[in-house]
């Protein structure tokens, strides 16, 4: 039980800073609690493991027409709304800039060619078990974290954009401009590629859920359910076992971490 051992070590080194009550609670609870499900907001001090695999279930039947709360929330959370069009006010420039600005999540509406059935759903990085973007990256900057999050290490990204060519979900964005204002939790700069990282700072700081899922729930839709795909007792897996869901581009057999119902 490395997690428990580790827990104790953390407790010792922090004893001076935590209130007595907190210490008592943690020590009492610690033996029975697996680290990643600690309710206490505590920055992670032990490397992520593959004991968890973060994922999502998106119920497109609950995705309400005209709502883009998840997109707005993601933009705020990850500083995407801080991107500024560098120059050029004319319509052509603006149109081009809109195609160049980074977007981590977008709403897509599709219609079945035969039946005419329409569905509306948010699309983002699908956090594949076998991500093509990781395979093609020449420097290994595009990587999958032990807990299943597919993300970009900006420090080794050279901006070749091969991952963008390889991603079947068009999930990635290239930063086309110098970024002046950025958030501490979401670094961003010219010349690197980025995409949804399931609010990785929240994962590491022990905050539950993601910005998009929270926003969707706050709107009353609750179309996005975030959770651990390896926890059979967790809300995500419980839902997935009862509700029929599918992967987008199942034919590629990438075993995506984001599943969709009602598409």
């Amino acid at each position, binding site marked *: 039980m490395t997690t428990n051992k580790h827990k104790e070590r953390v407790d010792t080194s922090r004893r001076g800073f935590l209130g007595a009550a907190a210490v008592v609670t943690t020590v009492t609870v610690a033996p029975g609690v697996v680290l990643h499900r600690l309710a206490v907001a505590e920055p992670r001090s032990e490397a992520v493991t593959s004991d968890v695999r973060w994922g999502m279930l998106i119920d497109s039947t609950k995705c309400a027409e005209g709502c883009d709360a998840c997109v707005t929330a993601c933009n705020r959370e990850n500083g995407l709304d801080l991107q500024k069009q560098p120059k050029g006010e004319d319509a052509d420039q603006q149109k081009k800039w809109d195609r160049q600005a980074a977007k981590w999540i977008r709403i897509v509406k599709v219609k079945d060619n035969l039946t005419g059935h329409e569905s509306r759903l948010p699309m983002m990085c699908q956090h594949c078990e076998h991500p093509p973007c990781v395979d093609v990256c020449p420097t290994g900057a595009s990587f999958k*974290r032990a807990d299943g999050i597919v993300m970009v290490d900006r420090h080794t990204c050279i901006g070749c954009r091969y991952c963008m060519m390889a991603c079947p979900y068009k999930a990635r964005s290239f930063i086309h401009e110098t970024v002046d204002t950025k958030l*501490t939790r979401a670094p961003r700069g*010219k010349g690197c590629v980025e995409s949804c990282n399931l609010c990785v700072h929240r994962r590491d700081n022990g905050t539950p859920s993601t910005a998009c899922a929270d926003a969707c729930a706050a709107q009353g839709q609750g179309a996005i359910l975030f959770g651990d795909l390896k926890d059979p007792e967790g809300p995500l897996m419980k839902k997935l076992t009862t509700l029929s869901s599918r992967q987008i581009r199942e034919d590629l057999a990438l075993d995506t971490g984001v599943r969709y119902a009602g598409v």
Partner: protein
Amino acid sequence: MANAIVRGSLVRVGLTGVLFALALAVQAAGEATYVIEGSKAAQLDSCVEPTDFMRRNHMEVIEHQRDETVHNGIRSTKHSLAGCIDCHTSYGADKVPVSINAEGQFCIACHEFAAVGMNCFGCHAGVPMQPSAETGDLPLPRIGHKVGLSTGEPEAVNVTRGVERGVSE
């Protein structure tokens, strides 16, 4: 060929000399401090590690932590860049933080003097994280608090070992 080798080693000897002189100068300055007034760091006795160590090795410490954070998700240590920024940022009269990379501020002042090019702030914010209940961010003062007070007690991570082993592993 032989000529080139000789020239190469001369250059190397020269460079080492310059570095040595620089180190001596710093040592001679003794208690000289380079922290910016008005930053949290100015009120503390030393950095997260002994100041001498940090002067020479801060880049390895930060780079090591960078890989730990990006790949392993470890954000609890006192060696994070966010911690540097939180502690070393100074504040204007209006209590607005001045970017640590702005002219004359902690990072840039020294790097400019030493002619070191680095581009942390091409992507990273140069001002401390703003605590926000809305986004669920941990308010940084907590981490800052820990950074400021934990100098006596070594953290679990052995930095010197990390530095010796190299940071790119």
